[in-house]
């Protein structure tokens, strides 16, 4: 079979990058879940035709530069404070679509209070919560979500539950709050899961548009650099270790 220029034709097109991603090079490590979720998130907004009216809030963490990649209006928030920043934005512009994009250190450690209270007030915003069980950006320290016995640079002998506490199931926690309309846990390490995850993100934004309350999408991802693994190995490890503790699916729908 020969492949020439002639195969470049509309009927052969199977994929197009969403227009809501800029052309800047992603700085994420190859294989990192952040890149996949960036794409899904922007695809979801494009599908719903919300790109023009959405304001996103970037965290402090590996995704601090999300605003360089997402071609929509964005604000960069202090570490953990994205839910408060999003609250400020949404309260003065209730008709706009607002989301936060946060890592597990950002959302479930330093920013736990802001997360719980935004959810409890039922702020009409969408949380995109990237749980990779570690502090990726600062070099692989323990996060509240780090698994039992999992090694990190601040738990070099593995997380000891007695002295370091238990891995925090944030989505189960916020699902208990009356302000939360939708809480789900997704993943993106297989093509089927990628498709499911996008559906969940679309659903969250639809509910936001219907003023149903807070929508919360956790995405369990790898951090191959922080976990000191190759990308494929990290995905296998994720499936074997993270998913049993953080089971996928809707927790509140």
């Amino acid at each position, binding site marked *: 079979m020969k492949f020439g220029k002639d195969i470049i034709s509309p009927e052969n097109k199977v994929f197009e990058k969403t227009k809501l991603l800029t052309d800047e090079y992603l700085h994420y490590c190859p294989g990192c879940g952040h890149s996949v979720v960036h794409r899904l998130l922007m695809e979801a907004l494009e599908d719903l035709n919300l*790109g*023009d*009216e*959405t*304001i996103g*809030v970037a965290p402090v963490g590996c995704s*601090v*530069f999300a*605003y360089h990649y*997402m*071609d*929509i*209006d*964005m*604000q*960069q*928030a*202090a570490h953990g*404070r994205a839910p*408060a*920043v*999003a*609250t*400020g*934005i949404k*309260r*003065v*512009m209730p008709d*706009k*679509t607002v989301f936060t994009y946060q890592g597990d250190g950002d959302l479930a450690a330093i920013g736990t*209070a*802001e997360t719980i*209270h935004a959810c409890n007030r039922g702020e009409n915003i969408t949380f995109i919560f990237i749980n990779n069980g570690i502090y990726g950006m600062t070099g692989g320290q323990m996060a509240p979500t780090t698994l039992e016995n999992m090694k990190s640079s601040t738990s070099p002998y593995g997380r000891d539950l007695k002295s370091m506490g238990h891995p925090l199931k944030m989505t189960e926690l916020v699902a208990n709050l009356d302000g939360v309309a939708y809480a789900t846990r997704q993943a993106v390490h297989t093509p089927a899961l990628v498709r499911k995850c996008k559906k969940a993100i679309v659903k969250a934004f639809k509910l936001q548009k219907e003023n149903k309350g807070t929508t919360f999408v956790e995405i369990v991802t790898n951090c191959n650099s922080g976990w000191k693994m190759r990308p494929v190995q990290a995905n296998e490890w994720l499936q074997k270790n993270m998913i049993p503790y953080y089971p996928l699916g809707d927790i509140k729908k």
Partner: protein
Amino acid sequence: MEKDIKLMKGNEAIAEAAIRAGVDAYFGYPITPQSEVIEYLMAEQPEKRTGMVVLQAESEVAAINMIYGAAGAGKRVLTTSSSPGISLMQEGISYIAGAQLPCVLVNVVRGGPGLGTIQPSQADYFQSVKGGGHGDYKLIVLAPASVQESVDFTRLAFDIAFKYRNPVMLLTDGVLGQMMEKVEFFEQQERKKEDEPWATVGKAGRGHRNYITSLFIKPEKMYEVNLELQKKYREVEKNEVRYQEIDTEDADYLFVAYGTTARICQKACQLAREKGIKVGLLRPISLYPYPYDIINKLADKVKGVMVIEMNHGQMVEDVKLAINGKLEVGFMGRSGGIIPTPSEILEALENKFINK
């Protein structure tokens, strides 16, 4: 038109002034001695009067970050707190200054350090004027000395904040917040209709995205942004110095004091003149930018300068900088919620310069 005069507490007057100034949103957390601001707003239901949003945040940390978000949308936003709460806000304030967002903050200062006392104090001068949060930034700081000025400066603060895209702080204290005075209100201003060109409101109709950030990871860029900030601060220093001179023309001695202590010094000046001692008062209104020049000039005419503060010596450092060694500078301070009396202020001046 009939004058709109009311008898009001300073804190409540600030709340009413905010509604009338066309403020879009207030985010705050209760703390004595300023809780009347949010209580007044909640009772007044400004969403019915002007559409203004009022939200009680879960902490001052959350409140200042709500301010960041709404300010980043180009709205007129206000928060108020008192010393420990303002300490909690410092990271957020630094971000706001770094991202060049306009907003108005009110600190109704109480005594510290720590949980301190709920009584009035001026111990947060350094925190307000010299930084407070991290990085090379400046807050524009206005110090009202009456309930009337609390009202007028609330409105003025928003004009200045938007002119320079910079946070502006009103530095009052427990006396100014709690005391009732006669106050005349300005008429209701409209809320903003136009979006700021830099604001994040959704990119519709603009053709490009806006983003709000204080992150400039490349050293050259961070340096450039810092130079831009410094340029702005020089402009602020040129245009926004405010002060009041009282009885300085023939004065042999000068008090320098701001806010509540300036009011007390005014009485001390009267007592002095009754005794035949010619004393004047220079009251800085803007604490940043500081009125260095006028203090330097006045130092050429008087025999001594006495700084009075409700702390153990903070603004006195700026007075010394202004005078630059030309003249001796005396200081008298009370703290912990103890308010100096006119007679003890006068006595301090006499002991320092006259009966020595």
